[in-house]
């Protein structure tokens, strides 16, 4: 077959796959500009004659005392704090496992890798009960603390530290009389930074997208992240007589909840891709 035909065929297939990916996002953008009446009465894939973004924004942010603004803020809080602290803990732990020998090191390592296989299901219900006992349910810390246990992050950072931070550099810092933590901070950190950025991003995205854990642990609307809040609104759509149906709020809210990630993605893709692949490629 001629090269030109192969290229066209390839491009056609790739474009088709791209359409599959983009159609819902395109639909989300278009639909967010329609109010409830327009949603049911205009063509699904075309913008309405009169854009209702203004009314929709107003409705979204004023419904139920501005709960949506809380959800947006909360998602940022959960994601940023979890990613920052989680990366710090994972880096510290991974570096410790990689650069030092101590009793039980292999045990810890085994725990980390083994825990990767345990599905979250087995933990959420008893975690809820445990947190209730500790008074942590329905709090920010209650959601963040469990998420700081990030076995993948520890594993990633331990391999990364072993490979990237030369023992000689660490030894010479020690000779100079620097404490271990100081060594990590001054020598290790700059070297580990790309890995830390990757981990931060993966953790941020994972937390932003998390639904099950906050669903179970949180009871007050103003503490919900976007995932739990929007799904709560969506669940009223099928209930008869639940006040005015929240189609526009749910659609515009969904769009806003994916915007931060979508906007950052061209910049993040490189880091994230490397991080995701790491787990697969490491050990080869």
């Amino acid at each position, binding site marked *: 077959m001629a090269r030109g035909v192969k290229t066209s065929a390839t*491009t056609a297939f*790739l474009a088709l*796959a*791209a359409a599959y*990916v*983009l159609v*819902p*996002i395109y639909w989300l953008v278009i639909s967010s500009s329609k109010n409830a009446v327009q949603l049911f009465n205009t*063509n*699904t894939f075309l913008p309405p004659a009169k854009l209702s973004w203004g009314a929709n924004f107003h409705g979204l942010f004023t419904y139920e005392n501005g709960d949506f603004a809380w959800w947006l803020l909360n998602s940022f809080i959960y994601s940023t704090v979890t990613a920052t602290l989680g990366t710090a*803990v994972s880096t*510290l*732990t991974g*570096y*410790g*496992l990689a*650069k*030092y*020998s101590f*009793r039980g090191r292999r045990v810890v*390592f085994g*725990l980390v*890798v083994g825990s990767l*296989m345990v*599905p979250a*299901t*087995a*933990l959420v*219900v*008893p975690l809820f009960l445990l947190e209730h006992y500790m008074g942590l349910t329905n709090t920010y810390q209650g959601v963040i603390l469990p*998420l*700081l*246990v*990030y076995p*993948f992050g*520890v594993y990633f950072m331990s*391999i990364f530290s072993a490979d990237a931070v030369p023992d000689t550099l660490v030894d010479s810092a020690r000779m100079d009389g620097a404490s*271990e*933590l100081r060594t990590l901070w001054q020598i290790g950190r700059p070297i580990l930074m790309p890995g830390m950025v990757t981990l931060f991003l*993966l953790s941020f995205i*994972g937390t932003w*997208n998390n*639904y099950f854990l906050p669903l179970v642990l949180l009871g007050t609307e103003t503490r919900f992240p976007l995932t739990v809040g*929007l*799904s709560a609104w969506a*669940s009223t759509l099928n209930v008869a007589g639940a006040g005015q149906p929240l189609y526009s709020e749910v*659609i515009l809210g969904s769009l806003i909840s*994916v915007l931060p990630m*979508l906007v950052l*993605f061209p910049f993040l*893709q490189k880091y*994230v*891709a490397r991080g*995701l*692949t790491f*787990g*697969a*490629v490491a*050990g*080869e």
Partner: protein
Amino acid sequence: MAARAAGPAGRLAVPALPRTSAESGAAQRRRRWRASQGRSGFGMTAPFLALFAVFFAGPLIYSIVLSFRSPLTGNFTGLLNYRTVFSNGAYWSGVERMAYFGVIQVTVMIGLAIGLALLLDSPYCRGRKVFALVYFLPYAVPGVIAAIMWGFLLEPDLDVALKVPHLVGIASGPLQPLSYRWALYAIMLIVTWEWTGYNMTILITSLTNVPAQVLEAAKVDGASEVQVAAKIKLPMVRRTVIFTIVLSIIGTLQLFNEPVILNDIASIGSNLTPNQIIYNTAFSFGNEELAAAQSVILALITVIATVAFFAVVRRRMEPLQATRAVAK
């Protein structure tokens, strides 16, 4: 609790350690020095271990303890809850349904991911960076939001495209992907949409590790692009493919977000997946003990499925090692 970014359940790659030596005076000093280093190292892992103990090991152990308690009295009751799970038809229907789901959806998704990765890696691809980015976009979308979006798109009242087959005369009414008969396939569509790009991204990054000289050699030998893809590239990323399949298997058995949201929007059923059943048992029936037993069994099924898959695949991997050694 993290997203599906997890490490391989394969070989432990433990970093090498300095060796101990004979006990001279200098060696004694070194040993004491190393002990203090060891303490620092342990100190560094302490925060993680504390969190791990409280928020991971604790719930896990508590889960197992709960599963042996009676829901009514709270006393130890042996295997009662486990016997209940084994006699619960709905739970095993859920597991069976997920097996069916996994066989179809994981195959289609990984197949698509491999296909896209190979196409992007081929010389016939134009606009590789743009396509790669586009396919990766769904990773930015939370599962529940994806389910909401698709829940609307698959609703005939909201999506004119579903009415087209009826208008054209092929179907007797508007398509109803969220009806009882088709709901599971609708979920497959959504999950594939969400994760194909993620898996493809992992594969394509792996493909960049294929040594250039091997590809050159193949081209010199006159191999077509398709042959190169099938016989050289694909086998070289076999380990990555296995990794993505394992992650997908684990994810399938844990399916929760999408069926729950779709059930809220379109009443597709509240007992479709084992995780939904566990959630209902714990929070609707208030029966945490039974839910714990159900969770433990699900965890075991997941581990068994993963290990079984590895066993099957490992046996097929031995001859490949030789080829790769030569290639390197």
